[in-house]
């Protein structure tokens, strides 16, 4: 018996899977060697073996099995869940995949661009806010500088008239004011006690004609009791004013004095 004949006797047993391990290994090595006759004979033997399934008693699977299967298959067909299957490569035209890929790339790039733009806009908004805050700070400083310069001019100008405001309470400090006929009126003081809660100090111009006190600016000292206040356009002219008075008033000021003046200074 030739070697080929020996292996041909193993074909049916190999096809049904009954060869013991050593014979199976030997036969597989023979097949791997490229025996076309055995390969062809094995295909026929496998077909024959498959027909043994008809020896099984007829049986029918439940309807539920089909229901489960079809539910799964329909879901996977709808969702395209089995993307690893090569079938999908042939089921969808290449140009559609290319379109999808292009759309995907475009979407990703668009998303990135949008994100970049959003970030740029946010950065610009932040920079604008910073610049706005800086501008407001500079404007405030400029305003403060202008006020200080204006006050300095009032205090230093020879045309200004100095007014001493004496306290009613001798324990209180004396205040001083400087009034320039054109630049305005300044008042300042040191070691001035803070007014009560929700109250502030208010300047009044007492007319020479004996009319009602004219309300002017409100102010309050800082933590050290220091304050400087200025009004560029007093409610009445210095020539028409008999005296200056300061009272303690509710926050926001009053239209007419609600308390006895704490300081009074005659305008000379």
């Amino acid at each position, binding site marked *: 018996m030739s070697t080929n004949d020996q292996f041909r*006797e193993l074909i*049916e*047993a190999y*096809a*049904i*899977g*009954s*060869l*013991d*391990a050593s*014979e199976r290994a030997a036969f597989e090595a023979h097949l791997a060697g490229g025996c076309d006759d055995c390969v062809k004979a094995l*295909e*026929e*033997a*496998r*077909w*024959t*073996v*498959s*027909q*043994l*399934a*008809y*020896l*099984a*008693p*007829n*049986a*029918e*699977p*439940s309807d539920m*099995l*089909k229901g*489960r*299967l*079809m539910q*799964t*298959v*329909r879901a*996977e*067909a709808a969702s395209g869940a*089995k993307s690893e*299957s*090569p*079938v*999908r490569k*042939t*089921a969808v035209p290449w140009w559609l995949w290319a379109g999808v890929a292009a759309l995907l790339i475009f979407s990703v790039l668009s998303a990135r661009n949008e994100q970049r733009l959003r970030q740029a806009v946010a950065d610009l908004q932040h920079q604008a806010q910073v610049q706005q805050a800086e501008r407001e700070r500079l404007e405030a400083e400029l305003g403060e500088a202008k006020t200080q310069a204006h006050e300095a001019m009032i205090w230093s100008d020879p045309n200004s008239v100095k007014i001493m405001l004496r306290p009613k309470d001798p324990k209180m400090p004396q205040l001083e004011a400087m009034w320039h006929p054109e630049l305005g009126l300044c008042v300042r003081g040191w070691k001035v006690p803070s007014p009560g809660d929700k109250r502030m100090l208010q300047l009044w111009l007492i007319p020479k004609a004996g009319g009602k006190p004219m309300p002017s600016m409100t102010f309050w000292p800082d933590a050290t009791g220091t304050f400087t206040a200025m009004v560029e356009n007093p409610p009445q002219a210095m020539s028409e004013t008999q005296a200056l008075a300061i009272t303690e008033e509710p926050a926001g000021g009053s239209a007419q004095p609600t308390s006895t003046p704490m300081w009074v200074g005659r305008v000379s």
Partner: protein
Amino acid sequence: MFLAAFSPKSSDDVSPDATLMEHLLRRDVGAFEELYERHSRIVYSLVLRILRQGATAEEVVQDVFLQLWRNSAHYDVSRPFLPWLLTLARNRALDQLRLKGERQRRREEQTEEFPQIASAAPEYEQALDEKRRAERVRTLIGSLPSAQKKAIELAYFEGLSHSEIAASLKEPLGTVKSWIRNGLLRLKEGLQAIS
């Protein structure tokens, strides 16, 4: 050629399978459903014969058909479909048998009856050829001596090796080898005669 008689192009009962498989390659759910209708009975019968437990058999059948759906591209459309499907199902069932020690469990449930035995042949035309072929296979194998038939059944439905069959039947190893080979050759000739 012997196989040519069962090729998709020359056999009425296989050709529709090839067409359906081509549709299945395009993810045609309808083609899958028709393939299931055509072959689920023989696949289930085979798996149930191996596992002898209805619920487990249905699980395996479900796996087999899902594999068909998900990996249809692995099927060579030039080959007969049903033998390929039956081989797939048998391998899965034998794997299950070995994996879960079903053999021992099955001995304990020898009295269990086969559930849902098909009471009548399916109505479609394909079933007629299948029925005819099934009868031929049963006749051919049934004509063998009972020990030889038993040896073939142990090999096919139990997945036993020559040595295991010889031990089970208390027969010489060489005798078992001859029984299996000769029985399959006889089946081949018998089926060739009706094709």
